[in-house]
């Protein structure tokens, strides 16, 4: 893992809540080249970040390099265009990826009015 990646990952909140993802449940595993596995679990709007090699519980596995990963979690890389460009390889429940495509950067989502 390069230093920039380490610094960015250190700043990511490990837990949080995003009102836009109420009613969403699922786990995405990011397989980042040179870093290892990074998992994002969402449960009814609450999210937490897990580190480690496991991906058995993941509904969605995304394989990508460090640069793309950093751009994605900083909200600079659109998920779908990342897949279309071939920078992200997706496997599993793609609906989950579509649902949380606006979640990054974590913990900084707009408060969405709901009627």
């Amino acid at each position, binding site marked *: 893992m390069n230093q920039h990646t380490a610094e960015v990952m250190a700043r990511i909140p490990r837990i949080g809540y995003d009102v*836009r993802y*109420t*009613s969403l449940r699922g786990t995405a595993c990011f397989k980042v080249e040179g870093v290892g596995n990074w998992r994002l679990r969402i449960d009814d709007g609450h999210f937490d970040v897990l580190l480690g090699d496991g991906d058995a519980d993941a*509904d969605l596995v995304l394989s990508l390099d460090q640069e793309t990963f950093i751009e994605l979690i900083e909200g600079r890389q*659109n998920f*779908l*265009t990342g*897949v*279309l*460009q*071939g*920078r*992200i*390889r*997706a*496997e*599993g*429940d*793609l*609906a989950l*990826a*579509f*649902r949380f*495509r*606006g979640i990054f950067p974590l913990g900084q*989502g*707009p408060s*969405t*009015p*709901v*009627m």
Partner: protein
Amino acid sequence: MSTNVSSLNGNTFVVSDRTGNIAASETDPKGLFQDDTRFLSRWILKVNGNLPGVLSVDDLTYYATQFFLTPENTTVYVNSPVAILRKRSVHHGFREDITILNYGTEAVKLDIRVEAASDFADLFEVKDALKKKGEAYKRVDGHQLVLGYRRASFVRETRISATAQETLVDEDGLSFHIQIPSQGSWSTCLHVIPIGLRYRTAAKIRDGNAVSHDHSLEQWLRDAPRLVSSWNDLTRIYRRCLIDLAALRFSPVVVPGALPAAGLPWFMAVFGRDSLLTSFQALPFTPVLAKTTLRMLALLQGTQVDDFRDEEPGKIIHELRLGEMTAFEERPHSPYYGAADSTPLFLILLDEYERWSGDAELVRDLERAARLALAWIDNYGDRDGDGYVEYERRNTKTGLENQCWKDSWDSIRYADGRHAQLPRATCEIQGYVYDAKMRSARLAREIWSDPVLADRLEREAKALRRRFNEDFWLVDRGYFALALDGKKQKVDALSSNIGHLLWSGIVEEDKAAAVAAHLMSERLFSGWGVRTMAEGDAAYNPIGYHVGTVWPHDTSIIAHGLQRYGYRQEAGRLALGILNAAVFFDGRLPEAFAGFPESLTRYPVEYPTACSPQAWATGAPLLLLRVLLGMRPIQESLLVAPAIPKTIERIELLGIPGRWGKADAFGRGWSI
């Protein structure tokens, strides 16, 4: 009529000439397309160096075509002892079986050549004649020809192979030097496989879509109601519609099932407005489309403010594309949200689907999406707080200027031809909002157990109706303005949009007669259907895309609106006009045709670049059948109140699916 031959299957389609050959230019939409990318732009069969001639072309089904050819392309029939049979079947690329038959008394030696190449053009590049930015490559890989294209990490390939032992592969195609004995034959099978997006879907989604095509089409036709009519053309139109709807089914990959793509060749993609309205039209016939459409659009609902994509929280998409220009953000379709009407239409379909199907579970599943959509109407749709939804694009470079169904740049005009200033609040969107709130109030009261929200929505809808009937009404003309412009001035063109107001129910009873009279006047009604803009307005052009042509889906919605207000005879006349036009198009209505009067041309004049088949044009006869039979779900029953022109003696629709199980509807032509 077109000389192109199309075969399509969900996300893949092939457009060739009548010999099966593809020789696409930069702007010609021939080729093998998948995920908005052309994977094959050249596919030429030659025999002894000559292009074949065509004897006949048979559409076996929407995904398979058979071409009967002779070895030479001559204008005078040659009694050739050699015949060529070319059978193409589309599914994730295509398979092509070539059989050559020798009916001569001696053996023949033939050099068979299939030239192949690909420009890997994005559909947007084909449409707008744009140049590629990456590099193409080609190579022979064992027994395969590999055509490829690379731009950074974006890689697309086409792999071509043949089963014949004598296949010779080079970088420009495949060759076969063969000898066929007298009364003998030779055959090979060619496989053309596109390699594109890097994803694998979850097993539950793959399994949900893994249905064989034959079974799928057969089941599709069997599940739909059976139409019996004294008018044989009507049954032919109906069958054509069902088959074309089957062909336009588009697997969205991320949710199980299929939804209607908008049209071939330019719009084989998920659209908000088109998929919603087609699903609405088809509800009494193929309700499964509505369910997938609603689920998919909820999944793609906006979550943030994104100027490039015209995205806002709660907004329903306009269009999703998967080609190179979308990938590199040269186009905003990942997805693009430039539609101000798709969000209320989403709510309208959700309610209508439940009324027919009784599927309250889906309404509960999508409650949050529906509430977000309602919030979008008030917080983002109404940009300036005047109580109307208006639009002005956030993306000023590649976004759509007009975000209503008439989305060409020049569609919103004053009667004197001037363009309306932005932001624009077109009248039909206000109608949709009224209807969406009234319908959502029912869902809130009956399914979400939220009477407070229901009361509030009804109050807001009624207030909107009252204000709209004052602010949009042109007292001296006796019709509703096409729009309010950026200065809240009434845009006074007479347009088909006023018919959508009847459909939505926003028109007060005392104004309905005048609106109906305008719709049926010679200025708007061509004899085939309602013109998008009235004859006599300065911008009117009978072959202007949204300023004079007739759009069958538009007329079907207007007929439904007339019926809602009790103008059943007028609704019947419109239905008959469009169905008569469909006869001239062999049952397959194009998205639009020219607005010339029926009394002048006697046949509907084709619009030069109209999509065909196109989803909501395909859905138009279905909605018109519903109108003619007066079908309406009332709680657990199907109400049938036919109003059929005398020229159609009898219509029977048997096995209409719904919350009642299956029901039948009958009507006789004496009704009106």
